[in-house]
């Protein structure tokens, strides 16, 4: 029982990431009708926003230790981050919480990247075939990841969670299991809550603001809305920025769980397309639901008991589910009929 409980929890954080990325992907797809293969790259760029923030915060003054020497016999270098020099304890706190601060950095940066991407490139592809959209965004994804590789190298760069959130919580006890049976890292709880907040934020934004209402109307019928004299294009551009920001912060927050590397975007991209397809192309609730569902399913299939019956199932379960869904119910769990069928 506790094993099952643990798997559900494990699935939640992966599912949160899937749901967030799939949400961004669906926002773009639903509003603009563009299949964005560079979306994984946005996730990756978000993660590297965290890396950059930490790099900036830990820029250090180098002084030489008067007494101690390193193994080469030279004076030992002492690195003191400038922020600590200037602000003392507050500086130390800033470095510790750099992941959270990175969110503040990532939101405007990613939104800007998204808007530039839409205005500069994707705008010109609205009337081109989907194959062209896939190809040009695929090219863009390669370019973005290679730029990151050029600057940050090919190796993963581990990012620590804030010290106060790096431990684990004996969450099982809260639910009446034995002590130490279910230990769950704090950061994953944070990630899940964060995802829940962002997702509800996006939904609330679309539901309760006039801006969101217009966008939803545009998603349903773009032509009519623009005939009403509403500049839907500009709103869609902003939606692209929003989607990029959502995906970006999903990347930022994911860094303590998996150290970012330049190809993480491509790795996540396939999964997220699968998630979107399972949820139903163009359906926001579908994307979120499918994200969590597949995340949990994946962690269940990683259980030894399951693997003993079906070896290797954990590697392919998501694809398998996607295939079955696509063949049996092409519009996905919650999609409208006929989206993109032609």
């Amino acid at each position, binding site marked *: 029982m506790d094993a099952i409980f643990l798997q559900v929890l494990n699935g939640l954080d992966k599912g949160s990431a899937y749901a967030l990325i799939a949400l961004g992907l669906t926002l773009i797809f639903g509003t603009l009708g563009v299949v964005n293969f560079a979306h994984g790259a946005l996730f990756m760029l978000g993660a590297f926003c965290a890396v950059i923030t930490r790099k900036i915060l830990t820029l250090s003054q180098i002084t030489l230790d008067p007494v101690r020497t390193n193994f080469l016999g030279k004076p030992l270098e002492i690195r003191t981050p400038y922020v600590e020099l200037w602000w003392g304890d507050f500086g130390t706190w800033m470095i510790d919480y750099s992941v959270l601060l990175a969110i503040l950095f990532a939101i405007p940066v990613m939104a800007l990247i998204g808007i530039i991407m839409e205005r500069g490139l994707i705008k010109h592809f609205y009337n081109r075939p989907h194959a062209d959209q896939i190809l040009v965004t*695929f*090219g863009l994804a390669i370019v973005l990841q290679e730029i990151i590789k050029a600057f940050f190298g090919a190796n993963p760069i581990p990012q620590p969670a804030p010290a106060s959130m790096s431990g684990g919580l004996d969450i099982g006890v809260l639910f009446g299991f034995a002590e130490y049976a279910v230990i769950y890292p704090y950061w994953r709880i944070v990630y899940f809550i964060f995802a829940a907040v962002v997702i509800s934020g996006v939904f609330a934004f679309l539901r309760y603001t006039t801006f969101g209402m217009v966008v939803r109307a545009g998603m349903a019928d773009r032509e009519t809305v623009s005939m009403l004299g509403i500049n839907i294009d500009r709103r869609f551009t902003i939606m692209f920025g929003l989607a990029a920001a959502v995906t970006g912060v999903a990347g930022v927050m994911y860094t303590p769980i998996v150290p970012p590397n330049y190809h993480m975007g491509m790795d996540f991209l396939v999964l997220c397309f699968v998630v979107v397809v399972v949820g139903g192309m163009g359906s926001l609730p579908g994307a979120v639901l499918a994200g969590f569902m597949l995340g949990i399913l994946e962690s269940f299939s990683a259980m030894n008991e399951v693997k003993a019956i079906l070896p290797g199932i954990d*590697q392919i379960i998501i694809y398998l589910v996607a295939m079955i869904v696509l063949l049996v119910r092409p519009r996905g769990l919650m999609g409208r009929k006929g989206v993109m069928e032609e």
Partner: protein
Amino acid sequence: MISKLKNNDKLLMIVFAILVLAGPIILAPFGAGYPDLLQRFAIFGILAVGYNILFGLTGYLSFGHAAFLGVGSYSTVWMFKLLTMNIIPGIILAVIMSGLFALLIGFITLRRSGIYFSILTLAFAQMSYSLAYSVLTPITNGETGLQLSLADARVLDPVNTSGSIPSTNLFGLEMNDTWRTTILGMDFQFNVGFYVSAFILIGMFYLSIRIFRSPFGLMLRAIKSNQNRLIYTGINTRPYTLAAFVISGMYAGLAGGLLASMDPLAGAERMQWTESGSIILMVILGGTGTLLGPVLGAGVIKYFEAIFSRINENVLHAWFDILPGFMENAMVWIVLPFVGKGWQLTLGLVFMLVVIFLPGGLMEGATRIGNWVMKLKNRGSADSTKTSAKTSAKSSDE
């Protein structure tokens, strides 16, 4: 010239065959005349020609062809291990296995079209890749990749006493055999493996011309143009797309088998979906749906891969030596990210530019340049023909 080739398949075939067979001579001055690269030209040419039969004709964008490449490689290496180092059985098995695999995958994925088809093939490719890494380790040897060893059975071959692993051959002609000669200070290398691949490439190119010019090819183009109309014209489109999928899958398997024949090992990374992406790059860069384009694209990409990735900082410094110091450093700093390990960045950029500005690829570019040259030529005599051109335009309006 290009338009002439378009209309005259026999001429095209002859020119193509000559260019391919003379590859070692033509490419030597460009620093690409060594066997390893020449083999890759031919093999990836086959791959791209095959992919073009699916994507170029039907418009179905598959991200799963790397899987067929991998299946082909594994099958061939297994034949080397079990049966003989002669490449024929290995390649035959590669084609059959990839064909069967393509039949299975195509049967499922072709129920959907457009973006759904792309995502389904993507999922299949990733699945095959993951399986090759994990559960199928007894067949694929997992992360290490499938390699030959001295202990392999090789039932058909004579007992191996040499103490080293025998090399792949075609009835005794070893693939890595190279005849070298130096003419006018230039080193020419004629490699058996290249010529085996080159002859197969020519054959496969001929097959693709036949398909392009056949009623079957016409149906495939009709599928790309308007699948709905075709259905209401009494055509069952599924078997057509499936046949195209299987044929192009077999091309990929053949290429995989040849890759393994030149260098007898097979690894799972060959099956990753980004590999399929690079096949697509070749076809798009060369010119989708054209006959020559894919081969050209494969050649250009493999060439620049080989050349660009060899350029390092020292080479760049030598290039910009004539500039003053700070400018030299600046130029090196600017260019460096695009070469060496970063050559994929260049590839991505070029690819984007092609998709944006030149959707027809290099072939379209060549046609445009050709037209432009023709126009320039005509301009000289334009004044005298202006009036007649005007009247003929008028009559065609009516």
